[in-house]
């Protein structure tokens, strides 16, 4: 009996470890983070939107750079359709000197970011979502009283060349929501830069 309890406890702990992070179907974690304009931005500020394209990204990662224009385009295409981009930089500024708030401001100005670019100063938000790399997308759908995660993964299937893309995962997911169905695929995997955490 004791052994059974121990075994089930271990099994539960194992499941908890594996399940670290949010998956499609989970409730989105709320957050309040500082934007490059100095103002605080919360997920609840978007309660009148249909959803949010949450993008964990950063300044120096080549994959983040490869996707930068595509993220801007996503925002410009979908902001009027109720899905603005919210970009969060999860990197620790000491570990990654290109990701200080000053550098983020410079990047946002230089590239005319039409979306907010928030700093995950305490690094708790990316951990709660289970982001592992940049760029890493979490598409959130507004369910009235809360936001739900509906898609996790990549923007599309070719980081090197936009011209060679065959499937635009995020656009496909938003289209699915529009027709009342669930995104398929609802998760994708892609190569990216590890998130730089304070050691």
């Amino acid at each position: 009996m004791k052994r059974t309890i121990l075994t089930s406890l271990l099994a539960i702990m194992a499941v908890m470890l594996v399940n670290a992070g949010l998956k499609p179907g989970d409730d989105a974690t709320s957050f309040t983070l500082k934007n490059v304009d100095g103002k605080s931005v919360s997920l609840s500020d978007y309660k009148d939107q249909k959803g949010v394209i949450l993008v964990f990204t950063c300044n120096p990662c080549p994959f983040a750079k490869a996707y930068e224009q595509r993220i801007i385009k996503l925002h410009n295409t979908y902001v009027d359709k109720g899905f603005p981009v919210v970009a969060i930089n999860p990197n620790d500024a000491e570990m990654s000197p290109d990701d200080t708030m000053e550098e983020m401001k410079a990047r946002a100005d230089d590239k005319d970011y039409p979306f907010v670019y928030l700093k995950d100063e305490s690094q708790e938000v990316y951990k709660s979502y289970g982001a592992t790399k940049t760029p890493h997308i979490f598409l959130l759908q507004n369910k009235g009283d809360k936001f739900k995660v509906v898609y996790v993964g990549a923007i599309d299937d070719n980081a090197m060349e936009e011209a060679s893309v065959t499937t635009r995962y995020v656009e496909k997911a938003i289209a699915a929501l529009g027709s009342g169905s669930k995104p398929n695929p609802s998760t994708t995997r892609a190569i990216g830069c590890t998130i730089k955490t304070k050691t």
Partner: protein
Amino acid sequence: MRYKILALLCSALLFSQVRGQSIKQIGSDELEALSSLDNDTTYVVNFWATWCSPCVKEIGYFEELHRNPPAEDLKVILVSLDFPNTIERRVIPFLQEKEITAAVYLMTDLDYNSWIERIDPDWSGAIPATLMYNGRNRLFLEKELSRDELFKHVKQMMN
């Protein structure tokens, strides 16, 4: 004179053979095969890229492991995830500068979602990542390794 030129040409050719790292470009089926070879060898497969600073930091440890393996039946495989259009411009100069002699492959299939899970179900796609395996054990680590960690894991794997 003609011989001199020929000799010069030959030595130049030899030199570039020694200096020039050869990179084998592979697709997802070849990569999956490299990740699941079934023989007496222990394989250490490191996924890296020239743009990935923690990868660059640890790549010397993998080269050291390749040059001084704790046992004969160990093979180090470096799989570059640099974009294929940067081989000449970035990857080869990097390997020359770091004097890498371990086997280097470059993944040409950019549809990452179609193959990452086939290498390891726990891999989110972040690099550095390292797969170690042999007939008895298999270990996948999605993180940067210190020299001590790498050698410790390899030792455990071979025991």
